[in-house]
């Protein structure tokens, strides 16, 4: 039985993972099909499902909407999908405005906005609030204080937790407003009827407009006012820069031809560019020729058929007609397929599958379980425990790899494009190295390190994902797959290797100091592992750093510019070289190398995260106070570990006189 246990446990987890790949069925509304519809946001084509999840994550730190946050999980609160929440927000905002989806934690911010304290009887959990609870005054207050902070504390490192919470909430509210006006102006009741009214008013209105512009005699003021009234409503929705919903009627792969609903609605009358020009929107002035052309085209363009489809979906959902909504979604899908949108529809389908599969939350769970099994191996030396851990890590590695490949396919990019994907990739590299170590030593050490780093990097990635879309488009400088595939990948593998060495060293100190598990054999093998991994880390961080220099030479004409991120990478190279030279010179022994390697964790974290927080240089992402705190806590913990490592080994549990018996344990086990 014990021999089969590892495979049985792994198979159970594999079934659990495969289960998530089953297509979800919609019992009533076709939310799944609706979630796969394409939309352009953040400069990229994505399914509505991604827009909904990323937005909701930004607003309430979860990608589902709990409508009764005051209830505990066992009281079965009503939880809806992000897609359903977004659809409701877009088409029935008066309903969505009553849902408590805004997460507000900072006590001073809650006090400023006069938000209610926790009170289960009144349905308040003290953390989640609805749009309606902010009210007009709350909105104004948050807007004013945000502007105040942005003007008076331009340098983001001057901002305190309250400032950041205020700005965060303001951004969330702005996003909410943008989404609210995506399909139609937020106060629309019957969209199709409204469009029909508008279209009816166009011919007379356009005639009046042309007469007025050419100055030829009198014109029908009422007709002009009517069409202008409609146009202005649609024009106002554009101010919030909502997602681009309407595909080009000519089809094709290009995302730049997509329009916002407001723009598509303005096409048959004035056209958005001309209206912006006439309304004197800053930076939207047209050259005289373009303006004349715009005036000539007024009233000549057709309304995109996509608008009608959206109106049908919106109205049916608003009136709770399940069948009507589902038919409208199918109708729109058929229309989209007729457009020859190229790979777009295929891509949104896959991305939705990727979203619902959530590979990295699955691997995170697997890493925890596998870690427990590898601990089990040390404490009772049961081989089945190690085997289980090994198979689980292998399974997780496969899922992790597939997740990475899926992201690469969706983005059309090498694996690392931003901080989020670097976390995922460092985890992947570390798990790969851990598996290699395990194949040599078979003592669960490689597994323990793989699982700890695999899990931690996924926690980091999860927190980074709270900022919104993790697949945003790349700035012009970074728009080169060649350098992303070489420099970025290699330097990130260098980070991963340095972390593996550091965590091996942590294992040495923790197991040696707190337990009797560590033996001199195990110590020796750990020290060999650290040395081997450090060689690998030095090679990769050096080559990666240098490739970065060559990229910089190709792009800016300087090989080395002392940019903080470059310096960070250089410090890793110097530190790894230092450890290797100290070892070759006999200046440090086993324990010394371990302590130096733990410090390598600090060095790597500084390079990976710290340099981005400085707010200077080419790789700056601005100050993130949460990340800063986390970094400081991590650095502190590493210092404590180094302090432990500095205590003479005679005081360690594994090496103290009492542990003399334990040293014989492996001999007994192998016998």
């Amino acid at each position, binding site marked *: 039985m014990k021999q089969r246990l590892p495979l049985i446990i792994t198979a159970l987890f594999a079934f659990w993972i495969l289960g998530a790949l089953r297509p979800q069925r919609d019992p009533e509304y076709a939310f799944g099909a609706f979630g796969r519809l394409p939309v*352009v*946001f*953040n*400069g*990229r084509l994505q399914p509505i499902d991604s827009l909904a999840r990323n937005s909701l994550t930004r607003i309430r730190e979860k990608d589902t909407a709990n409508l009764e946050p005051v209830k505990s999980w066992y009281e079965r609160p009503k939880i809806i999908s992000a897609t359903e929440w977004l659809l409701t927000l877009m088409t029935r905002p008066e309903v969505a405005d009553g849902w408590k989806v805004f997460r507000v934690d900072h006590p001073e911010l809650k006090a400023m906005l006069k938000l209610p304290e926790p009170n289960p009887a009144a349905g308040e959990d003290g953390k989640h609030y609805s749009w309606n609870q902010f009210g007009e005054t709350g909105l104004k207050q948050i807007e004013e204080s945000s502007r105040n902070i942005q003007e008076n504390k331009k340098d983001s490192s001057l901002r305190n937790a309250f400032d950041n919470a205020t700005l965060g909430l303001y951004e969330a509210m702005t996003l909410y407003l943008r989404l609210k006006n995506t399909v139609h102006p937020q106060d629309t009741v019957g969209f199709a009827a409204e469009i029909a009214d508008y279209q009816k008013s166009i011919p007379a209105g356009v005639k009046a407009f042309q007469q007025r512009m050419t100055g030829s005699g009198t014109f029908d003021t009422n007709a002009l006012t009517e069409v202008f009234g409609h146009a202005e409503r649609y024009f106002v929705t554009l101010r919030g*820069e909502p*997602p*681009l919903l309407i595909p080009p009627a000519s089809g094709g792969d290009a*995302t*730049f031809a*997509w329009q916002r609903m407001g723009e598509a609605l303005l096409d048959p009358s004035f056209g958005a560019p001309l209206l912006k020009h006439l309304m004197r929107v800053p930076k939207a*002035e047209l*050259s005289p020729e373009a303006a004349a052309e715009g005036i000539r085209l007024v009233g000549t363009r057709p309304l995109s058929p996509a608008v009608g489809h959206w109106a049908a979906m919106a109205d049916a959902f608003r009136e709770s007609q399940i069948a009507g909504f589902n038919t409208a979604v199918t109708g729109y899908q058929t229309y989209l397929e007729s457009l020859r949108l190229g790979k777009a529809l295929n891509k949104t389908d896959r991305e939705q599958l990727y979203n619902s599969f959530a590979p990295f939350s699955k691997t995170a769970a697997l890493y925890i379980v596998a870690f427990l099994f590898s601990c089990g191996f040390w404490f009772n030396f049961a081989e089945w425990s190690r085997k289980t851990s090994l198979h689980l890590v292998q399974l997780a590695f496969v899922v992790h790899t597939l997740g990475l490949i899926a992201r690469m396919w969706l983005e059309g990019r090498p694996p690392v494009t931003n901080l989020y994907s670097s976390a995922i990739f460092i985890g992947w590299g570390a798990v790969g190295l851990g598996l290699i170590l395990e194949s040599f030593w078979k003592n669960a050490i490689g597994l323990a390190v793989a699982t700890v780093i695999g899990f931690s990097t996924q926690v980091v990635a999860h927190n980074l994902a709270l900022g919104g879309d993790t697949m*945003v*488009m*790349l*700035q*012009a*400088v970074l*728009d*080169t797959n060649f*350098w992303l595939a070489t420099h970025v990948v290699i330097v990130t593998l260098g980070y991963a290797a340095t972390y593996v060495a550091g965590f091996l060293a942590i294992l040495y100190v923790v197991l040696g100091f707190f337990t009797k598990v560590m033996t001199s054999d195990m110590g020796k093998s750990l020290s060999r592992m650290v040395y*081997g991994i450090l*060689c*690998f880390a*030095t*090679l990769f961080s*050096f*080559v990666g750093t*240098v490739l970065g220099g*060559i*990229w910089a*030479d*190709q*792009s*800016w*004409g*300087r*090989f*080395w*510019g*002392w*940019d*903080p991120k470059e*310096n*960070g990478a250089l*410090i890793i190279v*110097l*530190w790894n*070289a*230092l450890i290797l*030279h*100290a070892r070759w*010179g006999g*200046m440090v022994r086993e324990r010394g190398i371990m302590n130096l390697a733990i410090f390598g964790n600090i*060095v790597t974290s500084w390079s990976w995260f710290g*340099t981005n927080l*400085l707010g*200077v*240089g080419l790789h700056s992402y601005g100050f993130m106070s949460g990340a800063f705190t986390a970094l400081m806590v991590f650095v502190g913990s590493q210092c404590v570990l180094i302090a432990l490592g500095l205590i003479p080994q005679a005081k360690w549990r594994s090496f103290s006189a009492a542990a003399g018996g334990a040293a014989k344990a492996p001999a007994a086990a192998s016998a």
Partner: protein
Amino acid sequence: MISKLFQFLSSLRLTVVLLGLGVVVVFFGTLGQTSDGLYVAQERYFRSWFAYWTPHGSTFPVVPLPGGYLLGTMLVINLIVAHFTRFKWTWSKSGIFLTHIGIILLLLGQLATDMLARESIMSFREGDTRNYSESSMDFELAFLRSAGSNTLDQVVSIPASRLKPGAELRQELLPFAIRVKEAYENARIRLRAPVMDSNRPPAATQGVGARIVIDEQPPTRTMDARNVPAAVIELSGPSSLGTWALSGELKSQTVTVEGTEWRLEYRPVRDYKPFALTLLKTTHETYPGTDIPKNFQSRVRLRNTESHEDREVDIYMNSPLRYGGYTFFQYQMGKEQLADGGRGTSALQVVLNPSWVTPYLGCILVGVGLLVQFLMHLTKFIARRKPRAA
């Protein structure tokens, strides 16, 4: 005694200490950028022999550090001496040998770049032609005299660094002497308000200087702003020509001496090229519905009358133009106001770096060296483990 010195200079202990100090200096040099800006921090920590790190807001130096030059020199000495005394050449150490040669090359290459590389900016509007680039840091005082209609202007230029208050400058081509009265590293000029500025005289007696005042500004250290220097000079030919205000913000002023017109300009130092670029078209694309830049591109026409070259080139991110020893990179892009016809503007970064090839060579050597060394370790390790695994 000497042998002890060699022992010290070649020791691994010294290597480890230098690497450790390298980590410390690079770390503080990075931190220093937040308060000093990239350029000053570079000068202070990396292009120096000794450095002090001063915490933000503090006035006295706290952490004394070796500078980048000192560390680099010591590392090179350490490496070279070690190879001549301690190291014995064997095949098993060929990787280490290659790595170390590569490191020496990288360090020397960086030094050469520091000494020889020159960076400047070429900025123009669509339709403009330029045969020079301009320094982004240094200014010069230029006197220009047109020498007839068909030939080029005659130019006498004096670097801004020589304009020190009290200095008196003469140049044989100039029919007047220059006495520097005031000089500012960074200053703004503004029109003198007769009522508000009643207690401040105009900056100078002649030209536009008679209507302006100069407000000194603290020197800027950030990447996105630059210092605009200003100065007040007195010109004296046969008779005094009065005082003149100079500023990088002012256009040229004219002074007439003995019937000859001289134009007076305080401008970024120019570097003339034997060829010219014409900006034909700028392209600036963003991702749909966002402000994220997707592409900046300048189409330029390159003309060299000597070699009879005349061709069009696209310069964009990650794709510079390399010509005549210079490299032209897409740097900034903008658009003028509509009143000027809405022409696109573009700025190219122009880099001259004769030692650009050393880092490439150095990197290849180190990369190959590390790979060879670690592969040897690995194969030995696997060979040793195999019998145990069997």
